[in-house]
Each structure stands twice: as C-alpha cells, then as structure tokens.
C-alpha cells in the first residue's frame, strides 16, 4: 500500500462517490464492494457510498470532502449524466473545484436497471468506475461560455396549445410570431361543438382567445405559413418562414365575404375541408365565420382565374378594398428568435385503415370529427343530426378505440376518445331521438368531473356494450336489419355475440402524430418517440423540454391529450421559454474544439468536415482556426485531424484513450 501511496503523490487526488439510489442501484450492484475496490486505485483519496448522492446531504458531503481532503478531481457513479451531471458539477463548484474536473459514471440506466446478474453488474460498475478515475485525471479546467438570448419567441401551430402559449408569452411582454399552416388559427378545437365534461361550447371559449391573438400588439400572426428552415442554437435561432399565397391581400381584406356571394360559381360545389368534406365551398372561401384572421382566400385548384386565367373575376370586382391579387406569389421571411414553442398538434386516425368498419364504403359510417361538425350549430347541417341522404337516424352506434389500443394499428390509448364518445352520445341524443350505443373496451375517464360525466350518461339512457366491434355490415339476416347497418360485437359482460342494427356508425378515431412529424422534428433538430410523437426531454421532470435547448413542445404533438392538459402544457412551455429569455443569457457547454496552432500542419482536412463552417484557414499563418461561437462541439474535426492538433474540450484524445484503457484494464 505504501508503494501505491508513493505513486499517488504525483497524481491528482480523486474523490469517488457511488450512489445507492435507494435500491435502484444497490439492489443489483454491490456498491460497498465497488467503493472498496475504487479506494485502492491509484490517485483515489476518498471513496464513499451513500444512499442518495443527489440529495442535499450527498452534495454537501462532496463539497465538504473537496475542502477537507483537498480533492482535485471528482467521480460520481450514479444515474445517467443526462439527469444529474449538472447537479454534481454544481456540488464540485460548491467545494471550490472547477466543475469540469468531474466525470460521471452511469451505473443505473446502463447497469443496475438492465442487468440481473449481480456479480456481472458489480464487475461492470467497477470497470466503468476505473475508466472514469483514469479519465478524470486528464480533465482540464473549463469555463462555460455565456451568450445573450434573443427575447423574441416563435410559436409553431395555432391550435389551442399554440394560441395559449403565444398569449401567455405576449402578455409577459415578449414579441411572439405565431406561425400556422392553415388559413385560420383554432386547430382541432375550432371544429368541436361542445367540450367535455362541462359541455361548454368550444367556440365560446376559443374564439375570444383567437381574437385576442389577432389583436395583441405583441403577436405577429402568420397564417397559411410554414417554417422552412431553422438555424442557430439556443437563444439565437434564425427561422425562415414560407408564406403561401392566399391571392388576397391580408392587410386590405376586412372579411365582408361579399366576394364569396359574387363568385361566378353560383352554388358552392367543392368539398369543404373544414367541414370534413360534409359541406361544400366555393373557390373563394373562408373556413368558418369566426376564422382568424378573417380573411378570404382562393383555392388555386378550383378557381377558374388561377387555373386558366380566363374568368370575369366578379369576386375582385365587388371588392371595394381592392384586396384581390391574382399574381400573389409565395414569399419567404426570416425572423430571429431566442426560443421556439412547437404546438403542431395531431392527426386523426384514418378510419379507412380499419376496413371492417366500412368507412368510405357505407355512407352511414362517420368519423367522430365528422359528427363534431354535424352536431355543430355552425356546421354543414346547422346542428341537425342527419344521414348523408337527409334521413334522421333511429339508432346510432359509437365504436371506441378505432386506431387505438390495437396491435394492428396503434398500441397507445388516445386518452380523449372515451370522453368525446360520451360527449357525442349526449349530443346526438340531444339533437335527435336516436337510440345510442357505445361499444367500448374499457371506459377510461380519468380527470376532473370525467367519471361524473360518465355517470350522467348512464342515467341518460345511452346503451353501453363492453366489447370490440368485430365488423359493420349491411348483410341483413332479419327483416329488422334490412337496409340498415349491422354492428356485430361480442358483448363481454353478457357473454354472447350480438347483432345490433343501426343507421349511423360513429368511429371514435384515435390521435396520431401529424403526417409530417418526422420532417418537422428534423427541421427543428428534436426527436420523436417510437410512436412518432415529439420526444420530451424527460417523461416526468422535463415534459415540455426537448433535447435541443430553447425548443419546447406543447399539446398533442407530444402525446394524445385533452384540452385542459394541452392548455396546461402550453402554459408550461411558455413559462420555460420565459425562464430562458428572462435569464438574459445561456451558458453553453464548453465542449467546443480548438486548434493547437503550433501543431497544425495546415492540411485543411478539417475544414470541409465542419457542418457549421466554423473552421477557416488563416492564410498568413497557414493554419486552421475554429470559431468557437459557431462550433457546436460534435468533435468530427478532432477525430479527423491527422496530426492530432485539434482538441475537443471534455472529449480530448487522452481523456478518451485513458477511458478505453481504464475500462479494459484488469
């Protein structure tokens, strides 16, 4: 041992700490054994184990030890550095040590949670600890770089999430640009008639917020626009937005809609997308009366003038504001923002994918969104529940979990379908005298007042049948079924198979990621989970953050959720953005690369490799030079430099080589 101690004299003094994490680590890894083992490694001055290293006493212990034992390096074996690296860096700083003289060993996510063999897991923990002790000796003292944060914010998506986030930010005095792909904000909520469980009218609570967005002095509203490109980093994003042509000057149009009456098409004859194709619209249209901004637009697919250039343009003639501009082109605008809130929402499951329910084959089969429009007073039937042929349905069957909880399509529960199915059952009953059947697998009503709403429905005389509908058919076997749709289902509570004839089938389609969620996440450099929804930084502790700092997510783009949860999340995302902006600056990881000038041979290999063009060639010196502000710290150049003269902070060659050596040493 004394020999060992002599050898230690010229090595930096390392403090090693291993966390039990309750039984999360200690249950699989013999932490006492690891601690004992590490205490014998050269240079290790202190080695301790503790129940919860991340707790205050744990951090305090580290800070105290640094002072008492004159520690020069710190190694903590605990959870993932993604979780607590920052915590222990702070503990190091508290003890007076440069926070980067620290290395974290991940023995929870990468060992105790994934291994069952205690001996092997303990051995692996020792290997990893030894590697970290070897590595940390080479660590350098570093400083975090501070960069200012642009106080402006971009909100992408104008559904209830985007609206709420934009208003919160704007009310806090920040300048917000709200970009929405469709011609109006409002999103899915604008389609709904009533909202569960309170049955307050969606328009009554949404449209005032939409108007508030339009009139807010701090909000710039860009509808019919899409984000094309995002560059930069936290606090300093440069965003390019494509503004699609409406062929109507937004600043001039007052939304009087006289042009719609004047259109050469006397009858509206094109499917109305807003009304889910149930209604008709003209080539010049506005989605719904409260559309925000209240500006008409032209559909280039159906407008005669835009298609052929030969129309008498009666729409433009009646417009006394001269708002029409048939020559309008798409244009691109660039904005600078410090933070971005993504609230791009969801896509309803395509009911055609479940052939057994006959959507698209039987006219009597509807999606829930179509019914939302049918029961809506401003919808295509003015709120009357009628079939496509105009007849009133005598019986309606609502199929839950279409495209949810199904191994063939989506495994997840879409969370809102049970509740909105109950709501639709209530509304259909209210708007017609039909018998309503709900076919459910499990009734899921977690939420304030939700279970009570279900109870209310039970007493309203709606039928509930537990069982997944096997198919919908028009093959009648009894006279009563003639000319109707028959729903075949195993009633799992009664214990037999039933055939229930109805006139209208409602498919409660689940929530899916937007069709272009993958492209969008690439554009913003964030991740998607395996289902395709945007990935949050931590499922519990950072639900609106992403792995890219300064980009936050809110609403159903992250996972299926209802309106109250969406609004809460939008508020949280806005608060995160505010916290970032009001701090005024961000501290960037110092893991950037730099060139050791004396060693650079000027071969220029590194220059084309840098994706951020951060490396340039200094002609007079014949050396490469890295702009640290542009460098994002990937280390591609460091790996490529033939003379090893590019160093990446925190990931230097000797640090990694000693880690390799350490992990493999016996």
């Amino acid at each position, binding site marked *: 041992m004394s020999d060992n101690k002599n050898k230690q004299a010229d090595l930096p003094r390392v403090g090693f700490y291993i966390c039990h994490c309750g039984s999360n680590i200690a249950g699989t890894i013999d932490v006492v054994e690891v601690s004992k083992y590490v205490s014998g490694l050269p240079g290790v001055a202190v080695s301790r184990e503790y129940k919860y290293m991340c707790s205050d006493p744990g951090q305090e212990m580290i800070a105290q030890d640094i002072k008492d034992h004159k520690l020069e390096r710190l190694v903590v074996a605990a959870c*993932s*550095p*993604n979780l607590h690296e920052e915590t222990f860096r702070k503990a190091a700083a508290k003890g007076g040590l440069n926070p980067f003289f620290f290395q974290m060993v*991940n023995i*929870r*996510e*990468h*060992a105790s*949670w*994934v*291994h*069952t*063999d205690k001996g*092997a*897991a303990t*051995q*692996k923990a020792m*290997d*990893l600890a030894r*590697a970290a002790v070897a590595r940390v000796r080479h660590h350098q003292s570093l400083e975090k770089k501070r960069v200012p944060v642009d106080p402006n914010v971009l909100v992408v998506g104008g559904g209830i999430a985007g609206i709420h986030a934009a208003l919160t930010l704007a009310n806090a005095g920040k300048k917000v640009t709200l970009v929405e792909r469709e011609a109006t904000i409002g999103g899915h909520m604008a389609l709904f008639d009533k909202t569960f469980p309170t049955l307050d009218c969606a328009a009554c609570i949404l449209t005032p917020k939409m108007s508030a967005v339009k009139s807010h002095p701090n909000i710039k509203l860009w509808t019919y626009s899409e984000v094309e490109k995002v560059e930069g980093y936290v606090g300093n994003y440069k965003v390019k937005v494509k503004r699609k042509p409406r062929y109507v000057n937004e600043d001039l149009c007052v939304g009087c809609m006289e042009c719609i009456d004047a259109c050469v098409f006397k009858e509206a004859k094109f499917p109305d997308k807003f009304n889910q194709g149930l209604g008709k619209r003209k080539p010049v249209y506005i989605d719904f009366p409260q559309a925000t901004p209240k500006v008409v637009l032209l559909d280039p697919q159906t407008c005669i003038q835009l298609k052929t250039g030969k129309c008498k343009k009666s729409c433009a003639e009646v417009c006394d504001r001269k708002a029409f501009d048939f020559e309008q082109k798409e244009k691109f605008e660039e904005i600078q923002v410090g933070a971005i809130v993504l609230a791009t929402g969801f896509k309803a499951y395509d009911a055609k994918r479940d052939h057994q329910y006959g959507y698209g084959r039987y006219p009597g089969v509807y999606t829930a969104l179509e019914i939302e429009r049918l029961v809506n007073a401003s919808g295509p039937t003015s709120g009357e529940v009628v079939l496509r042929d105009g007849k009133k349905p005598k019986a309606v069957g609502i199929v839950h979990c279409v495209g949810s909880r199904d191994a063939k399509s989506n495994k997840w529960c879409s969370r809102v379908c049970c509740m909105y199915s109950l709501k639709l059952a209530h509304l259909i009953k209210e708007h017609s005298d039909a018998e309503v059947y709900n076919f459910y697998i499990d009734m899921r009503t977690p939420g304030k007042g939700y279970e009570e709403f279900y109870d209310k429905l039970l007493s309203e005389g709606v039928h509930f049948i537990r069982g997944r509908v096997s198919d919908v058919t028009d093959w009648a076997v009894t006279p009563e079924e003639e000319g109707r749709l028959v729903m075949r289902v195993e009633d799992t509570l009664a214990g037999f198979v039933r055939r229930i004839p109805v006139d209208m089938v409602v498919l409660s389609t689940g929530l899916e990621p937007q069709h272009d969620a993958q492209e969008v996440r*690439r554009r913003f*450099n964030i*991740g*998607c*989970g*395996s289902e395709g929804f945007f*990935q949050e930084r931590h*499922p519990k502790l950072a639900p609106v953050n992403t*792995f*890219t700092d300064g980009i936050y997510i809110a609403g159903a783009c992250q996972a299926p959720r209802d309106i109250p949860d969406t609004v809460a999340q939008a508020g949280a995302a806005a608060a995160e953005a505010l916290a970032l902006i009001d701090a005024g600056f961000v501290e960037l990881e110092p*893991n950037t690369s730099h060139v050791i000038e004396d060693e650079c041979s000027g071969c220029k290999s590194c220059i084309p*490799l840098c*994706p*951020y063009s951060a490396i340039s060639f200094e002609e007079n010196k014949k050396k490469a030079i890295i702009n640290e502000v542009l460098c*994002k*710290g*990937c*280390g*591609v150049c*460091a*790996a*490529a430099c033939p003379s090893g003269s590019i160093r*990446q902070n925190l*990931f230097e*060659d000797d640090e*990694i*080589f000693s*880690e*390799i*050596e350490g*992990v*493999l*040493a*016996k």
Partner: protein
Amino acid sequence: MTEKFEPRIVAFFCNWCTYTAADLAGVSRLKYAPNVSVIRVMCSGRVDPQFVLDAFARGADGVLLGGCHPGDCHYAEGNYKTLRRMRMLERMLKAMGIHDGRFRLEWISGAEGEKVRTVINEMTEKVRALGPLDLPGKTLEWDKELKELEAHVNQSAPKEEAVHAR
C-alpha cells in the same frame, strides 16, 4: 480459460441518439448482457478510428459504435462521416484478422431502447461464439516473430547494413 468465456466489448455511443436510447432501455428496465461498457461521445463522428484500434489493442473482444440514423444526426451529418471512416477501418481490421462482427456500427435513435438490447445481446452472443480475440497476446507473438526475423537477418547479413535494418 476454463470457465465460460465472457467477451469484453467497448461501445462508443453518441450522446443524442444511442446513449439516450441506452438510457431509455434502462428506464424501461429492459434486460441485456452485461458485457458491453459504454463510452460517451457527443457524436459518432468524434470516434477516431484509433479509438477502435486502441480498444482492440487493449484487449477488447469487440467494439460497438452507435450513432443517430442517417439524416437524424444532431450535428447534421456527423454520422455520414462516421460511416465513411468506419467502412475504411473495417477493411484495415479485416487485414488484421478482426472481422465477423467483432466491430459493429449501428444506427440507434433515441427512441429505440429495444434496439439497444437486441444489438448488445446479438453482438455478445456472436463474439462469445467467436472466442477471445486477444490482440495484446497476438501483438506479443507478432513482436516475437519480428524479433526472430530481425535476429535471423542480422545473423546472415553483413554487420554495417544491419544498422539500417529497422
């Protein structure tokens, strides 16, 4: 090596995708072989081929490299550079007798915890079946052969030229 051979595999995982996926595997409590030790790098593009060679030279039986899927790199295109480098390295490794899956490059996104498990289990099985690589032992042998050759050359060649032999 009387007991069952347990391969030692060193993995280099990029911080944004594969390391996160390994964290996810942990959070999801997926169980996999304990033979792989992970070294974190910011981007798979940081992995100098020398890291891989060094790992083998220090006794690793396998080396696994994990990065983001093509098109998904957090640094735009680091993983393409990794791919190019590693294709070249594979040829060199083959010439050294290191092949048959002892070196593996995998794209694993942050959502693919399950893939971390499959890849690690598969690779461990494969390398276990191949047996120990023992490059350090082989290097000693090669050194010995070289010394013998050198001695042989020195013996038969005139003395002055032997000075230039190395």
